[in-house]
């Protein structure tokens, strides 16, 4: 009887796993089926021509790369520093609790609200214009909470006994953090970065008013240029223009590339994480 119940439990768990994998598998399958037809060397390396129906999407891919990289550049150091402060230095009081709650709530802010915020603050107030810089900063706001909370969790998971061991040897607080706590927490921190990279690369709303443009001739000249970006490009292809059929094909091609890019970025981060783990576990 007990055995049967256990088997039923396992069965349910397996079912859930299979359903989850199925969802992922179906997404990859359909996007690949519909997108693969248009993928060619030309599509990956050329700029769009003839109202998006000819040529490729090279500048679009590049735009997404710029924006993602830019946002990580801002949010990673800020997020880690913030997590270190909250975990290792901050006193435990009311104000710090408010800050923690605020960070968690920041994660729940809809991305289009971030977009409007970016428009008001970075584009208008700081006069950065619709640009890579504004878009990156807006995206980094979006990535910040998940990086902070992942880094915090990774830092909290380091046993207090490790910190005590280091301090008892005469290491300063900062040496302990720099040489014992952060290296041990790094794999966990990277997990947070993986998740936010995926999210940042695929977000449309935050760059809608701050960085993205449907069409721009040539590659961006500086961080103050507007860019084309994959998620926005897909959105625009599906909602605007005069050649819906060809545009849909291009959109699926873009979707496949976006999916592929996110998978590559995640794979790199997972590789780093595994390597780190193997150092610490064997």
């Amino acid at each position, binding site marked *: 009887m007990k055995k049967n119940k256990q088997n039923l439990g396992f069965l349910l768990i397996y079912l859930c796993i299979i359903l989850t994998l199925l969802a992922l598998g179906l997404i990859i399958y359909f996007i690949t089926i519909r997108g693969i037809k248009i993928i060619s060397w030309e599509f990956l390396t050329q700029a769009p021509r003839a109202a998006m129906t000819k040529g490729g999407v090279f500048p679009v891919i590049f735009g997404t790369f710029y924006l993602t990289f830019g946002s990580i550049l801002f949010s990673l150091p800020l997020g880690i520093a913030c997590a270190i402060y909250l975990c290792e230095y901050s*006193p*435990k009081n009311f104000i710090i609790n408010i800050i923690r709650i605020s960070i968690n709530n920041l994660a729940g802010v809809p991305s289009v609200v971030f977009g409007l915020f970016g428009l008001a603050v970075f584009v208008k107030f700081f006069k950065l214009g619709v640009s890579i810089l504004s878009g990156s900063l807006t995206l980094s706001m979006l990535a910040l909470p998940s990086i902070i909370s992942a880094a915090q969790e990774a830092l909290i998971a380091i*046993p*207090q*006994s*490790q*910190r*005590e*061991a*280091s*301090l*008892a*040897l*005469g*290491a*300063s607080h900062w*040496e302990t953090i720099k*040489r*014992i706590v952060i290296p*041990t927490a790094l794999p966990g921190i990277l997990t947070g970065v993986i998740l936010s990279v995926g999210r940042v690369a695929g977000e449309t709303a935050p760059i809608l008013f701050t960085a993205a443009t449907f069409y721009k001739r040539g590659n961006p000249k500086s961080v103050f240029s507007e860019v084309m970006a994959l998620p926005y490009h897909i959105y625009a292809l599906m909602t605007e223009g005069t050649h819906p059929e060809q545009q849909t094909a291009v959109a699926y091609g873009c979707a496949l590339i976006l999916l592929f890019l996110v998978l590559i970025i995640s794979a790199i981060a997972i590789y780093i994480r595994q390597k780190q783990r193997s*150092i*610490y*576990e*064997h």
Partner: protein
Amino acid sequence: MNINDCFNCRIRVENVNFYYAKSQALKNINLDMFNNNATAIIGPSGCGKSTFIRLLNRMNELIPNTNLEGKILLDGKDINAIDTDVVEIRQLVGMVFQKPNPFPKSIYNNLSYGLEVKGIKDKHLIEKRIIESLKKSVLWDEVKDRLHDNALRLSGGQQQRLCIARCLAVEPEVILFDEPCASLDPISTAKIEELIVELKKNYTIVIVTHNMQQAARVSDFTAFFLLGELIEFGTTEKIFTSPKNKKTEEYLTGRFG
């Protein structure tokens, strides 16, 4: 005859009261610990033993909302004085913890860490110190061929001896043991005890222990704590054979604790 006349006092604790938030963990403690001797701190759980020993290298500072009154003197200098550097104190007063806590690094790097933190850059000197301290902690023969293996692969007893070696490498003069054998098997415990007996020839040792036989085997002096108070202090022989206080006797004979 006064004990202090024949022994060299290394650490003197004067009128120490210690509070966690509002609750008092130590009440008016006065205690001397002597050079080249092991002092055992015994008492039932929650009597303040660990709190006490962690005051000697200022480890309790890490806990928020604590308050210390009174003085702790190391060679006559107040370790809590404003002009005392906590890093210096901790280099002089090493500590071995209840649970072995090696870093998730190689054996070698576990030992080199304290030296690098101390500012020693000379690779040869670092290596020399590492070998010396591994030999002192009687771990050398077991690890000499795998210094670059991860320390977490060692057994619990080996890990604890590694922690002792790590502590010895930075050349402290006082070593605090906070229940060093609490999580070890009898064979590892015996090894660590032998080691402590050996170490007390050159160091000042303070050891917190739950195990009364252990206190009897390794220590020269014993202090009995109960509910935050120091009930009795004396030579280990005296405490174990003819305690003056009734509570000490009751504890030693196993009537409570």
